[in-house]
């Protein structure tokens, strides 16, 4: 068994028009920026994939990453908790023009929906959003005298995540707060593709230190010294 891929091009080759794509990260930390840009390269060359539903905590920043996907017209819908950033123009313009859909989900509910999707739990009840406009139309049930909102699982065709170390079985670690949504998304997609800063030999990650066991990961591609979205936005970089 060898889940490693030799190129980013291979990593994003199987994503289709209309797919639901989970993309890891919280702001720039843990965002698989190089893999996103490889997906944009493919779209520029072939016109595909388009009409994507993208699930991420945010909705892009500046002119790179998810914001660049939106600028290119690849994204039909965002599912996120916080579609704002230091430079949210890409999403804001399209949203206000009615050119992109938004499903706004409280952050903890978003995480739990993804975990549920990866865990075979089709729905669950949470106190979050009870009594607010985000609970409108949702089933409410009382447990022990308190009202809760029913939320459905979230699944995806593909998850694009960013790990720190990976091995050929797909075991992953993460770097500091770049963990965030990444381990959850690994569980919730039909195909999970992780970029990692370094591929190590089997055993190079101590079993005790594995954060995402390889069963949740289909492909691993090495991207040494990954760029940080935050720095790219501050530099005013654009992925055109």
């Amino acid at each position, binding site marked *: 068994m060898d889940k490693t891929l030799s190129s980013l091009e291979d990593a994003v080759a199987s994503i289709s028009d209309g797919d639901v794509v989970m993309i890891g990260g919280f702001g720039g930390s843990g965002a698989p920026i190089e893999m996103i840009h490889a997906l944009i390269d493919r779209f520029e060359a072939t016109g595909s994939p388009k009409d994507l539903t993208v699930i991420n905590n945010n909705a892009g920043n500046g002119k790179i990453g998810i914001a660049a996907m939106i600028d290119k017209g690849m994204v039909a819908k965002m599912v996120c908790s916080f579609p704002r950033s230091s430079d949210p123009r890409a999403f804001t313009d399209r949203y206000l023009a009615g050119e992109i859909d938004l499903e706004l989900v409280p*952050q903890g509910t978003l*995480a739990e929906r993804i975990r549920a999707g990866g865990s075979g739990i089709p729905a669950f009840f949470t106190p979050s959003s009870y*009594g*607010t406009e985000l609970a409108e139309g949702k089933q409410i049930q009382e447990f022990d005298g308190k009202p809760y909102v029913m939320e459905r699982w979230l699944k995806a065709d593909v998850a694009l995540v960013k790990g720190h170390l990976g091995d050929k079985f797909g075991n992953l670690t993460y770097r500091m*707060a770049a963990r965030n949504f990444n381990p959850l998304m690994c569980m919730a997609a039909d195909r999970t593709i992780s970029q990692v800063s370094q591929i190590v030999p089997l055993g190079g990650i101590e079993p005790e230190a594995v954060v995402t066991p390889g069963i949740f990961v289909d492909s691993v591609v090495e991207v040494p010294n990954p760029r*940080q979205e935050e720095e790219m936005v501050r530099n005013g970089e654009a992925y055109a």
Partner: protein
Amino acid sequence: MSWKKLSNSQIAWRVAQDIQDGAYVNLGIGFPEMVAKFQPAGRHITYHTENGVLGFGRAPEPGEEDWDLINAGKKAITLEPGASFFHHTDSFAMVRGGHLDLAVLGAYQVSQNGDLANWRVGSKGVPAVGGAMDLVHGAKRVAVMTDHITKDGKPKLVERCTFPLTGVKCVTRVYTSLAVIDVTSAGFVLREKKPDISMDELQDLTGGKLHVDGAVGDLDVPRIEE
């Protein structure tokens, strides 16, 4: 009108005095983050940020940022000894599961039954909720820190919120620029007020009835250089 409001730093100072040694605390993005600056000496407080860090400390020096190490406001942070990382559902389990001692949030409005409105003021623009609707559920205490009134002098403590709600019956205490007020089943209960404002003046600036249950303390806060 002879009274003077507390500054934001002074409100943050007052909030910090109530946080006990050993507490686990989430400080909301923006104004509530100031509370950490006024942590009294000798108390160890562990700060939680919902993107997956317990035990973070001050901001790094400019140029020393590591952008994998940020808080929920996407600002660079540093770690204290004993810090830990975890993924997003563990992080929100800490919130909704009742493990945090205190969440401190900002507010547009707080109602007398503890409803909070703090995520949007209308239906225009791009809505963004982040973790606000989760943070109001589960912490043992949910405190709000806010100016007592809006910029044009309207009460922010109201009978019923008119802005979109973040959560229902969730706020337990409000620290304002004029008073410290508990939110109980009886409504707003005044605990402390600035000594230079009268009860009547304070009531006039408050949208719901201010109840008194026992002594009302003086809200005395030291001068703080901004």
